[in-house]
Each structure stands twice: as C-alpha cells, then as structure tokens.
C-alpha cells in the first residue's frame, strides 16, 4: 500500500458526510440558508424548550417556518455574539434585526397562554415526526456553514464580542417553565400514542439538563442518532440512560458557572482576562486549586481516597496522557467498587451508578475528562446499569471489577500491542520518522521496531511549555535509537528528510478529525505539504461519535503562566503581572483538531484505516457493543 496519496487540493478542511448520509440531503444543500433555518427551526420545534439555553443557536426566523413557536427562542437572553458563529452568513441583517425585535417582543409576560398553546401545537407527534428528518440530515450542513463562517471569522480575527445578557424576569422564567412542563407532557403523550422509534427519541432531549448548546446540534445529539439507525427501541432506551451525550458546560454563562461553583468541591476562582473566543471553556486561576484541594483533604469524606489521589494527580499534571489517565481512573474506580457496600433500601445498580457519577464529577473539576475517559466511564456505567438485579453484592462487584480489568486489557493494552504490530509494518529500513510530543503508542512502536533491528532514525518534535518530547527523547536515546530533537517552529526544515510522520491522538472523531495535543495539526499540515504520509496511532476506544470541525468549541485551556514564563530566561519578564493588565490575554490551548485531509491513515487495533472509516469502527466495535 502506497501511503503517498496524490496531492489532493485542500480547500480548507472539508466536511465529510460519513456513515449517515441520507440520499436526499443533497437536495437540501442547494441553498445554505434554508436548511440551516429549517434545522434551527427543527431543533427549536423538535426538541422541547428544556434543551434551550441562552447560548443555543438562536433559531433564525424564516417565513416558511411558522411552526417554530416564538417561545422556543431563548427568551430574552440570547447572546447576539453567538449569532456570529452560530448562524449562517446568509442571514440578512434585516432578518436578524427582526429577530431582535421578536426577542424583545415576546420578552413580556403577557403571552403565557399563547406560548402554552403554541407548545402544544408544536409538539404533536405528527409534527415531531416531520421535524425529525431535518435534524439528522442537516446537521452536517449546519456545521458546514458554521465552519465556513468560523473560518472567515478566524481570518479576520473577529471573535464574538461578549454582549451583556439580559436578565430573565420572574415572569419570563415562569413562562419558560410552563412551556417546559407542557412540552414534557406533550412528549409523554407522543410517546404513548406513537411508540415508533422516532417518537421514542422524543423524550430524550427532555431528560437532558437545560445546557444544550449550539455545539450539540452538529456534534452531540445529531450524529449520535443516525449511527444506530436500525437499533431496536429497547436498546435505544437502554442507551439513553447512560450514553446520552452530556451537554457541555458553557463557561461564559454566568448563571450556570455560579451554580457549578456552588456544588464544586475544588475551589475554582475564574481567571480574569480570558481570550474572548475561548470564554466558554473553563479557566481557573492556576495555582489556587491545588493548595485548596489539598487543605480540604480530610473534609471530603464522600470521595474515595483513591479517586482523590487520582484527582490530585490530574490536577497537578502528574499523570497526563490519555491512556495513563484512563487507566489511573479505572483503577481508582475499581477500588471504589471494592470498598462499596450497598446502603440499605437501595439497589446496587442505581446507587453505585450515582456514586461513580459523583466521582466523575470530582475528576472533571480537577481536570476536564478526555474522550477516552468519557468512553471508559460510559462503558462502566453501562455495565453497572445492565447488571442483573438478582446478583449479590459480592458477585456484582467482582463482575464489575473484572469488567474493568478486561476493558483496560482489551481496549488499552492489547489494543496498543496490536497497533504496535500494525505500525511497525510501516517502518522500513532507512526511514526517518517524525513524531510530535510524547505519544505512548508511538513510543512503543519505535521501541519495538528498534527491538526487531529495524534501522531508522527518529525526529522528536517538541513544543513549549510542557516539553513532553524530552521525556520521549530520553527514553528513546537510552534504548539506543538515533534521534534528532527539535522544536515545532523548525518543523518545516526537518520535514525535508522525514519519510513518515507518526502521531498520537487524544481522540478521533467520527468525521475523521484527529483531536490531539496542540501542535499536531501543524505537524500534520506541514507533512501534508511535503507529501509525507501521516500515520495517526490511536486505540479505537478513543474514537467518538462527535463531529468537530474546529478546535474552538471543545478544548482545554492550560495555565497561562506556563507560556508567559520562559525557563532559563529570567530577564524575559515582560509578561510578569500580566493578569493586572486588561489589554493582555494569554491563550494556552491544550488540544487542536487536525482535519482528516491531512491524515493519511489511522493505525488502530482493527488495522490501518482511512479516517473516513471511523464511523464504521464506532458502529461495529464501539463501546456499546462491547460484551453486550
């Protein structure tokens, strides 16, 4: 297999419609505004208002979509800035201004009854059936338009300006609540009346917390549905409990942040000057969390010591890397399960699930979960909820523990061994291999290849501030592998001599996008430009059905001080005290998204695949399919 593909013209990162393209979606592509509008309308009408949040895409009004009830708009609190990102560019100024007018119009409290009746009309089974189609079909389209838009805005450096959100009045809140209640009732009715698969999905968004947000439309619920189109109802409903994509928290929403803070264990003082575009991501004053959490060590009785230990290690970056974090977390959960006894008058499946959930939320406070961990948690919760009820505690516990063991083994350890075997077959004598950062699987590939006496050279590309590559370099050199070490800024120079690029990944999303350590995209693009094949090594348990087109909507922010300080250069102190200066905003991103165009092949335990095959892997070998 020749890895060098013909140089395809890359016109920006393209959206592949993979796996779930319905034939008639092509027709919908004709105009960009109509499908987007209908999608928005569909989401507004198809999903009950409980899923609305102030940061959802404001559904643009369109003459043809009269059924979109005005009350489904985020009442009086939508953020105009979101429109820049969220709405299609075709939206004319006049229309958006009309929308504005509407928003203020129904902001009043006099239309409660209207809203109620509107909800009832919108939620009839028939209309929901109708509306369901566009949701799934146009999801990629919405994202495409959004993508284009964000590309454009990226170029101009135009970020959404944070506009002050209007506060909800009491009456408005009540109106929303009423609407939600009505929607729920309608959904129930629909479920009772129809019972068709499409209807069965109806209550699903209703069960979700109200943090649905704009990204979830293309990335969260949208693609998830079509992935198992033929699944039986029972299966879907079983999955619903555990596998519903968690709506991601938006950290620019002050009320939600406040709520989160109240129940947070870790003291989280928000960093002050954050970069505009990334305000929706959590960013805390670094250096305040750890001492605070440490001093509370004995006060948090509810958290199991081993979970606490892992959380501390995540927080202090002692354990990092997708596999290591996942293993550490699973081992901690194993101990939690071991020490667990079902309280009287409770069932193990329910109570243990809740307990694991609380552990997970603690870990999230310490550091946002990686996709791999999310998948592992999903698996574990699935196992817990699917335990037979007649099992004794001891049996149930031992079964869960062996499940965890098997997960670690099959999904991580054996998987990485298989990847090593596949990967080594791509190393020929005389190769110059480049890697970036310190991916564990790639390291094992190199070590194994060296062990079987392949003759090759490694270029380790590293970057500030973590310098993970140095650890890799040290270990490789100790094995006697000939290495070159350079930094990311020199990657275009070293790429001349490189014959293969091996990269690791934090996650691979279902459109083939590789979500990985920041800088990976840069390496992959340079390699693509030099026509060097890029092999991304990733265990299949890190695949996720989400679709992501940029690295903005979902990312992690690191310690800004880490990039403001230069080690060994004490004289470079221009950024000292930057937090006091309002004009400085530091951005330390942790991940980026590499479009699938720049990836030649994905090396997984299932073999070497094109990035387009990710949905197939998810469908056939996904976490849900594991031993069910």
């Amino acid at each position, binding site marked *: 297999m020749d890895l060098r593909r013909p140089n395809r013209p890359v016109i920006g990162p393209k959206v592949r419609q993979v796996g779930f393209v319905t034939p008639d979606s092509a027709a919908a592509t004709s105009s960009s505004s109509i499908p987007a509008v209908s999608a928005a309308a569909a989401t507004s009408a198809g999903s009950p208002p409980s899923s609305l949040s102030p940061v959802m895409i404001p559904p643009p009004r369109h003459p043809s979509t009269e059924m979109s009830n005005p009350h489904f708009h985020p009442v009086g609190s939508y953020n105009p800035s979101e429109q820049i990102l969220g709405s299609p560019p075709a939206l004319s100024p006049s229309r958006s201004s009309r929308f504005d007018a509407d928003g203020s119009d129904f902001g009043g409290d006099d239309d409660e009854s209207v809203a109620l009746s509107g909800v009832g009309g919108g939620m009839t089974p028939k209309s929901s059936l109708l509306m369901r189609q566009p949701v799934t079909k146009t999801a990629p389209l919405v994202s495409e338009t959004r993508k284009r838009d964000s590309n454009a805005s990226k170029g101009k450096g135009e970020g959404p300006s944070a506009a002050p959100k209007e506060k909800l009045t009491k009456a408005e809140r009540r109106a929303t609540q009423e609407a939600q209640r009505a929607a729920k009732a309608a959904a129930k009715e629909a479920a009772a009346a129809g019972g068709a698969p499409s209807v069965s999905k109806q209550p699903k968004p209703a069960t979700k917390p109200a943090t649905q947000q704009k990204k979830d439309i293309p990335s969260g619920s949208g693609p998830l549905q079509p992935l198992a189109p033929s699944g039986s109802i029972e299966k879907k409903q079983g999955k619903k409990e555990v596998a519903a994509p968690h709506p991601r928290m938006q950290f620019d929403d002050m009320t939600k942040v406040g709520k989160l803070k109240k129940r947070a264990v870790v003291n989280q003082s928000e960093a002050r000057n954050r970069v505009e575009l990334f305000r929706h991501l959590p960013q805390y004053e670094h250096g305040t969390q750890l001492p605070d959490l440490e001093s509370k060590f004995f006060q948090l009785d509810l958290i199991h*010591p081993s979970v606490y230990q892992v959380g501390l290690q995540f927080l202090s970056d002692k*354990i990092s890397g997708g596999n*290591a974090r996942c293993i550490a977390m699973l081992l901690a959960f194993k101990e939690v399960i071991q020490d667990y006894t079902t309280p009287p008058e409770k069932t193990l499946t329910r109570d243990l699930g809740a307990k694991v959930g609380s552990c997970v939320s603690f870990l999230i406070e310490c550091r946002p979960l990686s996709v791999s961990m999310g998948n592992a948690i999903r698996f574990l919760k699935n196992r817990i909820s699917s335990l037979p009820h007649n099992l004794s505690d001891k049996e149930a516990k*031992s079964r869960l523990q062996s499940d965890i063991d098997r997960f670690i083994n099959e999904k991580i350890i054996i998987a990485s061994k298989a990847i090593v075997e596949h990967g080594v077959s791509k190393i020929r004598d005389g190769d110059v291999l480049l890697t970036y950062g310190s991916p564990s699987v790639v390291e094992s590939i190199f070590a194994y290849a060296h062990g079987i006496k392949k003759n090759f050279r490694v270029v380790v590309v590293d970057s500030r501030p973590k310098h993970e590559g140095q650890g890799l370099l*040290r270990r490789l050199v100790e094995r006697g592998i000939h290495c070159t070490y350079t930094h990311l800024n020199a990657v275009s120079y070293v790429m001349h001599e490189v014959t293969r690029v091996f990269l690791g990944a934090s996650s691979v999303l279902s459109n083939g996008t590789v979500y990985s350590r920041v800088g990976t995209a840069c390496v992959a693009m340079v390699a693509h430009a030099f026509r060097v094949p890029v092999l991304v090594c990733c265990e299949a348990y890190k695949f996720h059905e989400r679709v992501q087109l940029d690295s903005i909507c979902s990312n992690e922010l690191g310690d800004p001080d880490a990039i403001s300080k230069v080690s060994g250069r004490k004289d470079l102190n221009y950024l000292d005290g930057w937090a006091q200066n309002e004009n400085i905003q530091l951005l330390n991103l942790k991940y980026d998204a590499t479009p699938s165009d720049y990836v030649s092949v994905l090396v997984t335990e299932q073999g070497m695949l094109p990035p387009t095959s990710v949905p197939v892997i998810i469908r056939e070998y996904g976490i849900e399919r594991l031993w069910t």
Partner: protein
Amino acid sequence: MDPPMDFQVVVLAGGTSDKLSPLVSKELPKALLPVANKPLLSYPLELLEASNLKNIIVVVEGDEAATQVESWLSVAYMDRLNVEVVKTPGDVGTVGAIRAVAPFLISTDILIVSGDLVSDISPGAIAATHRRHGAAVTALFCPAPVSGGADSSTSGGKDKAKKPSRCNIVGLDPTRQFLLHVVSGAKVEKDIHIQKRIVRAVGQMEIRSDFMDAHVYAFKRTVLLDVLEKENLYSIKQDVLPYLVRTQLRSEISAKKENSADESSNGATKELPSEDININSAVPSNQNLRWLSQHREIAPSSYQEIHISDCDMNKSRLAKKTHKCCIYLSGKTQYCARLNSVQAFGDINRDMLGEASRITGYTFSAQNNVVHPTVVQGAKTTAGGQCIIAEGTILGDKCSVKRSVIGRHCRIGSNVKIVNSIVMNHITIEDNCTIQGSVISSNVQIQERASLKDCQVGAGYVITAGSEYKSEPLTKR
C-alpha cells in the same frame, strides 16, 4: 469507623520534658502546659479537628502524665473527639512511642503529629501531598523562626545550647518537592556528606539550613512498621527520617515491602475474586498496571524521571527499589512553631497574643486584649494591648499589665507591673511587685516588692518579699 481517607493520626504528646524545666513537672506534663491559657495539646488537637480528623491516638510518656492527660481530654473533648491515650514508659523516644501504638495502626498511611506543634497549617495539605506523590514519607518543614530578638531572648545561658533546629540541613530538589538530604540538629558535623548517587539522579540539589522540621510526618504504614523493626533507632526526626532519605534510591524496605505496600494500598487485590476469574496470560497484574500509569507520569522533576528511566532500562521490577521522600514546605503566611524550649514557650505565647492570635480562637476586644468578664479590676488598673486575662483573676489598684498572659484565679495586689510575662493559674502576687519577661508557674506566691526579670519560676515556689532576681530559673527544692 473507617479512618477518613485511610489516614490515622498519632499525636506524640511527650511527657515531662527536661528542656522545659522548671515549667513542667510531674504535676504538669508538657502536654498540659498552658499556652495562652490553653493546654498545649489542645493546639494540635484543634488543628486536627478542624480537618475533620476525629479519631486520634495520643501517646504520652509516663503513667502520671498519661493519667492527667487522659482526664483532661475526657473533660475537654468528650463529645467532640474520639481520643485514645496510650502510655509508654519514659525515655523511649519517638520511635518507642510509635512502637507502642503499632498494633493500633491499620490504615494505609499514618500521620504523626508532635504534641507541641502550634500551627495553622492544614494537616490535610501534608496528607494530600503525601498521597499525590505516593511517597514513603512526607515531612513538614517550615521556615525556621528568626530567633526572638535581643531584647526578649535572654532567658538564661543554658538555652544557647538548644537553639531550636538552627542547624538543620536539608537538601531539596529544584522543584522543592523531594527531600534528598537531611541532617538534623544534634548530628550536624563540620562537613556535609552527600550521596553522589542522589545528586547524580537529581542533577541539582538545593541545600538549606533555614528550614525547621515541624515534626509532622505522613508515613506509609508498611514503611513505618518496617523501619520500626530495626534496632538502634530512637527518634523519628534524627534516625528514621534520615535513614529513609538516605536509602531512598536503594531502598531495602521497598525491595521487600513494596509489593505488599502496593497490595495493601490497592486493598482490593488480595481478596479479589475477580483475580481468579481473570486468569489470562495477557492480563498484567494490578501492580503492573499501576506501574504503567505511573510510567507515563510527567515527572515534575528530572529526579523522578531518573526513577522512571531506571524502570525502563532494566525492565525489571527490581528497579523499583526506590521510595520517595517528599517534603511539604509551609508558606510564609502560615504560622508554625514547636514548643520545645523555654524560649520557644515565651515566643509562642507572645505570638499567640500578637501575630498568630487567630490560632487561639479568642476574640480580641477593641483594646486588642482578652479580659474575661469575671475579672475584677481595681481602680486605675490598665490592661494594655495583647493581653489575656482569664476568669476569676482579681487585680488590685493601679496595676499595669502589658503583653502578658494571666491565668485563672490569680490574686494580684496593688501597683503591680506585669510586662511581657506569662503568669499561670492560682498565683498570688502581692503589692508593688514588678515582673518582666518572666514565666511564673502555677501556685507561686510572690511577696511584696519583689522584682523579677527574665526568670522562670517553678510551680509552688515562694519568692520572699523585696527580693530581686534576674535571668534565673527558680524551682522549689
């Protein structure tokens, strides 16, 4: 009840310390020595209580002291803490004390707190650091107190010999997380011998002599018990800690015990039935997995990376013959002091009145003092700032009290000046006395026109009328 977070707490309350004579005696063990009118032991206990540590083992030296401490504890903390008092024969040292409680120790990690610690550093922070690193031992070090200044520290020549831990020598790694070298007070020689191996591993070592060992240690239980088996160890500070630090790269304990330590920390593995189900050649043991996840730890320092690469190179578990000795350095804003000398007693009392008054739990009045409502003050008597006067004390006319602690039920006559002093309970001071910079134990009688400057007066002593003393310890024969 399970210990919280798998930590047990042992407080070493000591007995009747020689260093503190004449203040402590058989009647008043060190643990009950009043500091700002509260027994010394209440400070560590309240610190622990604030961290939700309610099951505490207190080790007391000597039978009488143990009885007294026990009776005090049962009254003061009856409903709040679950304190168990264990008594040891005198003069067994801190290691002996731990040996005495060894059968009670069941949790994964043990927190050992000295009973003479007056601090507001959260023990949770030390415990969390210990856990985070998975260390064998974690010690709390705090910046050594600057000695109390020329005017206040003249409490006798014999104090010079025991300047508290001035010459502790501590070696730290660049990130200040690991303890690489420690020589404590008494064993400091002219030269410092530093192991090449450790320096090579760490690359760079910072040697400090201005840190003080605060006698708060978190030990892994298995390590601790293993060390206790060894003979000729006497003190944790001077023997056990240096031993562990010295052997951290060629750990004999770990070689033998690491497996069991891991096992017990995992807890699960031993009685895990799933382990049997799971007989699959490809299944690595739990420890291997743990290693795998630690292997990927991004080491905070190159020091650890050596550990890791050692593991990597030799590819054998033998390479894991190391244990980590960590250090928790307290911040500058936190208060931490040990009451291990007469001078420290004075200093701590002063700090309790001044900078560290938050620890005492008293609320200071507008005049920056604490005067109990039952105190009777005569005409023209002034209680200045930074004073504590406890209940039942009667002050005569024209008295002046400044920067001093006065205990319960004292009777102080007219025209008495008390400056910078500590006056304990049930003391009679007659008219026209002057007391400056002194410590006066309980039941002392000071007759009129006596003048004391920088003296320590033992319990029950009678100072005759008109006598003058300067810088003397006075005890009843």
